[in-house]
Structure formats: C-alpha cells, structure tokens
C-alpha cells in the first residue's frame, strides 16, 4: 500500500490470527483477513522479513481495518519462490524450503 493512502484515510491496525503449517517441501502461513481480497493485499519480503498488509472492507468505530503482520524468515526459505493467494478472507502464503532445509533421506546400505 502506498504511503499516500495511509495519510488520506484513517485505519485501525489489527493483528490477524495466523496458522503456520510445516509441510515437507514448504511452510504455509494462513492469515484471517475478512473483508480483504487480492486487490487490497500486499505481501513483500525485505531483509529476510516477510510483511503482509490487507485492507479490509470492515470498519470499527468508523475506521477501516488494516490487517498487518510480519515474520522474520530464516535462510531455510527459498525467498524467490514465495507465492500468495486470497480466498474467502484467508490469505495463504506458501514459503518453499530451500534445498538445504529439505529433508534428505539417505538410504543405508
């Protein structure tokens, strides 16, 4: 979201509830952002910090809700291939594990 928008409108910042699932090949973060969709969500990674912002259509005491949360990433995440989608008010971010962090099973002879 641009800095300009923040100045023009009054937002209520809310910390969204999150689930993090550890999968074999990736970690999946799902955040509850009711009232937000792909057009109002931004996801970015800077200096190994994953930041997510979602502008919601919901209001609270006249202020528009802004869901905001960030996570520190380890170098076990393949930052280049992070993907995100929104559906039914849930933002799902998939963080693929880097080759180093994947489980390698070694056959014992």
């Amino acid at each position, binding site marked *: 979201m641009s800095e300009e928008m923040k100045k023009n409108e009054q937002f209520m910042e809310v910390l969204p509830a999150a689930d993090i699932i550890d999968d074999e090949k990736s970690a999946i973060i799902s955040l509850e952002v009711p009232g937000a969709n792909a057009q109002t969500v931004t996801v970015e990674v800077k200096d190994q910090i994953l930041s997510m912002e979602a502008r919601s259509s919901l209001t609270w005491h006249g202020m528009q809700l802004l869901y905001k949360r960030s996570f520190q990433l380890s170098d076990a995440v393949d930052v280049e291939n992070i993907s995100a989608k929104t559906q039914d008010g*849930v933002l799902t971010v998939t963080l693929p594990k880097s080759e180093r962090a994947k489980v390698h099973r070694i056959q014992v002879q």
Partner: protein
Amino acid sequence: MYYAQTRQHHNADSFHDLMKAFFRSYPEWNTMWTDEGPGKGMKVKVREKDVRVTLPFPGVSAKDFEVEVVGDMLSIRANRTREAADDTKQYLCRERSTESFQESVRLPVRVNGAETSAKYVDGVLTLLIPREGVEAKASKQIKVD
C-alpha cells in the same frame, strides 16, 4: 422490555455474554458490550429501510451457513466443515479458530424475513433484511390547494 435470546457454544454462562444478550436488543445504543473488537463478532445495524447484519467468518464457503429469520428472530449458524481433515498436519503455530458459530438474536424492529438477501464475500457474511412497514412512515408531501 425483552431480552434477546442469545445462544453460543462457548462461555455461554459468562457475565459478558449476559450483558451482550441484553444489549443486542438495542443496537442503537452503541454499547461496548456487543462489540467484540475490530473484525470480530456479529454486527447488527438498523438502517432506514433495512437491517444490515455482518459476520466476519473467514475460510468457509457459502454452503456452510444456515440463516433463518422467523418473525423478528434471526438465527445464524456457521459450520467449519474442513477443519477435521487438517488435524493430520504439523502446526508450528495455530491461532485461527476452529469453532463453529451459532447465535440467535431478536431484531429490534419488525422485518420482512422472506425478502432477506445474503451473500458471502471475502470471508464476510452480509445479510440485508428489509424492514416492514417503513413505506407507511415515509414522508409524503401534501399539496395544498
């Protein structure tokens, strides 16, 4: 005076829920008791021609809702059907609610329940229930001859 009959799955006996049940009948008072915080809980707003009810309930689909309007009584039930399958996954962090939602509330105005429209967009259920008899109250200009 009447009390709204509110039923909930969790903490049904708490003082907070009792106050919430009472103040639900008077949405125009705008009290803190019915406010569960930003982005949470059912909100009932009585407008000029209709009653607007919103319920943020992300991560389900339209078919997971059961909405009923009988007289001035509104009942909403929202089920989380997909959560059972997720138990096999390894959670590093689990904050999202897995509870279903059920609440019944007596609306403070007369409504035409049959004309209710409901939609589920971006994780928010929105109901528009037209008010009954508002046309009669509408101002009418009378020409003086």
